[in-house]
């Protein structure tokens, strides 16, 4: 994992350096944000899944807990990754421009959309997540602690989604948006957990159950996405429909297509019993890739281009995260 991460980081660096030299700094910030959202999402999704299992019980989660804990332990690394973004708010948030240059509807939101308040909210979320991750490291306890953890996660992830995924397009708002983020996080974390479990070996019955569960999460994610699209399409309001138009134009349609192919492919494979049992790891990897493509599609089109510079920064951040996670795992294994 460490080596793969370092190779990815070096590839990303090879693209990011020329981008920086040729003045494409804002594009780097966008790519970095997408990678940070994805990595952080996996840790937060793992926390959510772990606490849901602690509350509901069931055999599906017993084998899943160790990989979920490992993912949750990556949370501090993902938070460290977010620090460079704090230095370049102007590249991410158009509302940092002088107020008089902003549209009236954005000016009306400035009591919420301002940097000191944004950083205070980010710090509060980070502290809450660190506490949750540290407690989760010793195992989800269930009962009141899991209930409180899930409530805190739902609220903080909503704030995070509004601040870092919605605020880059300040005229747009969608009340279902934070729920889509939660669904992506948990589907992605489950897929990553299944990949880890497959490498350790898993009995057929568990594969069957976990495959169905992953299919359920994928359906939930698809349902939330579809509902947002249907409502926005039907109403055709300028401040909403542009969110989709921007994600279908300027080459982003390819990313949308890739995401659809990956997620539908994963869905078909998960629904097909023989495929989900025989190619368990590959199907989970397909699902994880699909969820990654979805994060990229939601984040990148709102950011300034070009795409290759964004891809470079995303690869660099993702590679560093993977390498750090590999190092953490190795250290843990040595201590064990």
């Amino acid at each position, binding site marked *: 994992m460490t080596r793969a991460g370092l190779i990815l980081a070096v590839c990303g660096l090879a693209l990011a350096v020329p981008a920086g030299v040729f003045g494409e700094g804002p594009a780097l910030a966008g790519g970095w944000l997408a990678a940070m959202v994805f990595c952080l999402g996996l840790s937060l999704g793992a926390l959510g899944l772990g606490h849901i299992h602690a509350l509901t019980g069931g055999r599906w989660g017993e084998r899943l807990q160790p990989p979920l804990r490992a993912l949750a332990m990556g949370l501090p690394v993902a938070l460290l990754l977010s620090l460079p973004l704090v230095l370049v708010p102007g590249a991410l948030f158009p509302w940092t421009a002088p107020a008089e240059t902003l549209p009236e*509807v954005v000016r009306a939101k400035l009591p919420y959309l301002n940097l000191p308040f944004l950083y205070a909210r980010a710090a509060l979320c980070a502290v809450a997540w660190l506490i949750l991750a540290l407690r989760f490291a010793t195992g989800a306890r269930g009962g009141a602690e899991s209930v409180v953890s899930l409530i805190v996660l739902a609220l903080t992830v909503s704030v995070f989604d509004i601040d870092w995924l919605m605020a880059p397009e300040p005229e747009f708002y969608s*009340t279902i948006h934070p*729920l889509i983020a939660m669904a992506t996080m948990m589907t992605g974390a489950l897929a990553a957990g299944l990949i880890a479990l497959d490498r350790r070996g898993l009995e057929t019955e568990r594969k069957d159950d976990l495959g169905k569960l992953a299919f359920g999460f994928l359906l939930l994610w698809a349902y939330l996405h579809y*509902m947002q699209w249907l*409502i926005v399409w039907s*109403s055709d309001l300028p401040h909403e429909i542009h969110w989709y138009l921007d994600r279908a134009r300027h080459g982003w349609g390819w990313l949308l297509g890739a995401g659809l192919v990956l997620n539908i492919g994963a869905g078909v494979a998960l629904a097909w019993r023989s495929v989900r049992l025989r190619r368990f790891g590959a199907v989970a990897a397909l699902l994880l890739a699909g969820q990654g493509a979805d994060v990229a599609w939601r984040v990148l089109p709102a950011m300034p281009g070009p795409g290759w510079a964004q891809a470079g920064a995303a690869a660099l951040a993702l590679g560093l995260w993977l390498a750090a996670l590999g190092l953490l795992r190795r250290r843990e294994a040595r201590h064990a």
Partner: protein
Amino acid sequence: MADIPERPPVMRGHPGTREISGRIASIVLKGQMPRFFWLAFLAAFLLVLVLFTTVAWLITQGVGTYGINIPVAWGTMLSNFVWWVGIGHAGTLISAVLLLFRQDWRASVNRFAEAMTLFAVAMAALFPILHLGRPWFFYWLLPLPNTHMHWPQWRSPLVWDFAAIATYGTVSLLFWYIGLVPDLAVLRDRAKNRAAQLFYGILALGWRGSAFHWARFDAVYYLLAVLATPLVVSVHSIVSLDFTYGMAPGYHSTIFPPYFVAGALYSGFAMVLTIAIPLRRLFRVEDLITKRHIDNGAKIMIAAGLIVAYGYAAEFFFAWYSGNPAERMMAWQRLVGPYAPFFWVMLACNVGVLQLLWFRRVRLWMPALFVISLLINLGMWLERYVIVVTGPSTGFLPAAWGTQSLQWVDFGVFFGTLGAFFALMFLFLRILPAITIFEVGELADERREA
């Protein structure tokens, strides 16, 4: 309330299959219902008469009789519709979703929950038809050949509603009936008089309980559960689209589909508990519908209620975050406007009272839980009413603001359908087994083997 076991069992004692069949079947076959049962049925039947009278008045005098006018053209017919559809969802969740999740505790409560679904959907289907103004043209919503010189607007969720409710009703009826067949055979075999033998015998479709029959039964029942599960989500999502497609402030919100589904489960489970708590006492089946069922139902209400509370918070935050003065004003009017009393009572019931369910003692104290479930039913009705009327009443043009006030027709139709619903439930309890005999028997066998 002296001692509460850490986790109450799904079934108390170790009754045998014959004993269970005998006890449940005798409720129906002996027909010795307590006096309270018939008094309650009479009260429900009187309300059915109120329903007939009010509907006759509504049809002859027009839809203006229930207080709607421009700008508030949607009133209680819509809120009643949403409320009743929501009630039905808990039945499908218990019968289909919990079956797929292999939750054994559903066995004792799924039958009457499914009946609740059917009757609630039947009540719900009345309201859009009454709301049409000219209900005799309701068939225009069907995809009829255009020789009729009309063609429904297929992009309208109001038309989708028709298909959604019809599908939901059909699948729920099939699922309920297929699940009843083995129990109808038990009643046929245990019946002493010829009429009952014929009645239950025809309905039992020649069920002999052979291995072949059970294999076919399991395949069909599982398949219907798979078909019914997405309906829990799709039906109420389509209902929510009736609002989100509208441009009125407070209507156009993308969170509505999942928020409506959660609200449906919330009110549906409140109704399940409203029925289950007196039912287990009335027919002395506390050992079959145990405190475990009640506790689990209350826990699902906590989960659904928290999602609903999240939805309220999201609605208010995004009304402000939209930066749109009309959205902000609508949210403010909900707090202080003419419908504010409804809003605050709704909040007290759906969010305030819900907090009591965190306490295990409250969840397992039947009188308290019964009152809480009634209050949540009330709160969820108010929620739908507040959503329906506040949006159009405080639209984009302040000069065109207006209100809808509740009239006697609103109350007559609503309480009339409540009466019809409970009258149907009472009839169901009288002629069909309210607890699934074969599933509870299987559960008892498994427990004995364990």
